[in-house]
């Protein structure tokens, strides 16, 4: 009788899991397996039947492909810059709106507004603002005596411009997370510190920061991974140029796969990309765990 009940419970349990699992298998597990398989074939989109297993050929070609190598560096460059810029901005904004002040609501909404807008819309908007000849930004720069800048049309500045636009767009979301974390810190800790004669900065450094740490780690993890997936901004604003200076890995996956129809080649980039992200996640988790033990 008892056994029977357990079996029944199990069936019901798996039954509840089934819808989610089925979807996961159809839309995640199977496609991932297909990509792994395609990465070792010469799959060409127009001749799906004729694909052949070619071993490591795709990977050999990849590492001799200057655009692919460049796309890795560009992606890393973007990530290295976006993390401090975006998280710094988010933290600053969270500090501003954390205190109860008049008009706080206005700032909260203003800081968060870009997050709810579509990335494509934001990119096009900034494209107009950043136009080197008649854009608003250059007009303002000239007013304060700075020579106008080429921004997106310069291979040197294009990526930094994208970093800036992306940080402006995304920071509101992390601000909200930081704010949640800050409001979880009990007020009496600050009171005690104030009595002990801590300055505002010391309070921030010795109380807010350490107590905010779990939030910071979570935000860092999620931002890092989404930063690697950069594609929309360069696609809309620069088409990967000038001179491939904003070609990112995900954009290159798209381009080789859908424009060039090289399904196999594109899959091999996707495989490398996924492995990279996986490794980074593992390293990150290890570091975070060690941190916790200390």
């Amino acid at each position, binding site marked *: 009788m008892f056994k029977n009940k357990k079996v029944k419970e199990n069936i019901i349990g798996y039954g509840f899991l089934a819808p989610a699992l089925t979807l996961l298998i159809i839309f995640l597990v199977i496609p991932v397996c297909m990509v792994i398989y395609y990465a070792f074939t010469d799959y060409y989109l127009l001749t799906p039947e004729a694909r052949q297993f070619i071993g490591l050929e795709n990977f050999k070609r990849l590492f001799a492909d200057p655009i692919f190598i460049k796309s890795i560096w560009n992606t890393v460059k973007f990530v290295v810059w976006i993390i401090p810029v975006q998280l710094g901005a988010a933290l600053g904004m969270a500090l501003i709106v954390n205190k109860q002040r008049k008009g706080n609501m206005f700032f909260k909404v203003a800081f968060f507004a870009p997050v709810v807008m579509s990335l494509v819309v934001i990119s096009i908007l900034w494209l107009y603002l950043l*136009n080197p000849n008649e854009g608003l930004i250059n007009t303002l720069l000239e007013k304060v005596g700075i020579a106008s800048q080429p921004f997106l049309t310069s291979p040197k500045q294009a990526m930094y411009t994208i970093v800036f636009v992306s940080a402006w767009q995304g920071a509101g979301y992390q601000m909200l997370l930081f704010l949640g974390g800050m409001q979880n810190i009990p007020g009496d800790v600050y009171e005690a510190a104030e009595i002990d004669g801590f300055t505002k900065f010391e309070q921030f450094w010795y109380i807010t920061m350490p107590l905010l740490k779990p939030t910071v780690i979570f935000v860092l993890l999620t931002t890092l991974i989404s930063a690697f997936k950069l594609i929309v901004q360069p696609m809309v604003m620069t088409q990967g140029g000038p001179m491939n200076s904003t070609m990112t890995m995900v954009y290159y996956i798209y381009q080789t796969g859908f*424009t060039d*129809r090289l399904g196999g080649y594109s899959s091999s980039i996707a495989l490398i990309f996924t492995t990279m992200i996986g490794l980074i996640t593992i390293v990150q988790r290890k570091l975070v765990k060690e941190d916790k033990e200390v």
Partner: protein
Amino acid sequence: MKKRSRMIAAVAAVLMGIMTGCGGEKKEEVSGNPGEIKVWVHFSDETPEGKAWQEIVDNFNEEYEGTYKAVTEYIPRSGSGGGYEDKVNAAITTNSLPDVITLDGPNTAAYAHSGVIAPLDEYLEDADMDDVLDSIIQQGTYDGKMYAFGFSESNVGVYYNKAMFKEAGIEEDQLPTLEDPWTWSEFQSVCKTITEKYQTPAINMQLASGDEMLTYGYTPFLWSNGGNVVNEDGTKAEGYFNDEKTVEALQFIQDLVKNGYTTISPIEKGFETGKYAMLLSGSWTMADLEENYTDIEYGILPYPVSDTTKELVSPTGSWQLAMTTKTEEKDASSEFIKYATNTESSKIISLGNSVLPIRNSTIELIKDEVSDGMRVLMEQNQMSGHARPVVVAYPQVSRAFQQAVQDISYFEENPDIQKVVDARATEMQQAIDNSLK
């Protein structure tokens, strides 16, 4: 107990939903009556193109009533042609292509090479091919066989602002004609006059577009100079794209940028708002000008030509019709393609969608109905139209070309044009070699 069984039932229902949801994807392959064909097109039926198209299809169905019937499925594409081509790619994988598809000019080689579309030659014997523009035949021919038949044509010219030209002292009788176009050096001196007069770049050549426009608009400069992107049969780029003729043509472009006659970062709608005196653009700009910028009085000039050859070459290319290899209605499909590309159909689509005709007879027919600008482009097309290279690896070849043009427009970073074209030619060659393996 009852609760539980209800839950199980609920879960089962959800599962069933998922299963049937997936199963529903499989379309039933009922090809209808014999003689009925399905046609996929890349535009929406709401556009002027869609309306003109429906008229052609209706005419066809009326004329062949009882024998053949064409049914169109409109699949609007996104900006860069994405949506439609994705659908075609998916249909290739699932083997569910219709009988006739539309495809962009440069796709001919890839589709033909992959066996997606079938040659049309045996059906075209009575289609009066001598009347068809050379550029249409070039564009649709792969490996000596005609696979795709363009149903409209496009062309590019130099738009100029009449008032600004006059003010800068360039008289009507100094303007070039199709018989006597400006050479590159004549063009440069005109640019100089205008740039000095207005203190802005003289012409927006769409250098900033960074897309297919660069290949489409700039290859004629190479061809005019006797250069080429790839060899005749589309197997070699090295030794063709990086020869001195290409370098000379790109030098001409680089000088225009260097001297400030054109720019890599043009003002938005600069020509349309009277800030630039010239614009290099296609027939589609006319509709925009006539609808939204009626203040500008403009004309269209032919392409500038190489100083050495003085040969007028202009870009062409548009979407085409092709019969898929899997169709069982070969006669109906080919008959439909022939019908949609005859003189009358070409007239309907040209006038309905403000595009250029594909047949000399259509040009004769509508010459007096169209605007001056359109007539210049029509005649330039007739005289000098050149289709883009027909190569299987076209997307990569075209992108390498675009990047070469972009590279040399950054003259400070890339003063050595030979080095740029050498690198890009290697890129093209690798893509071509891989595609033909």
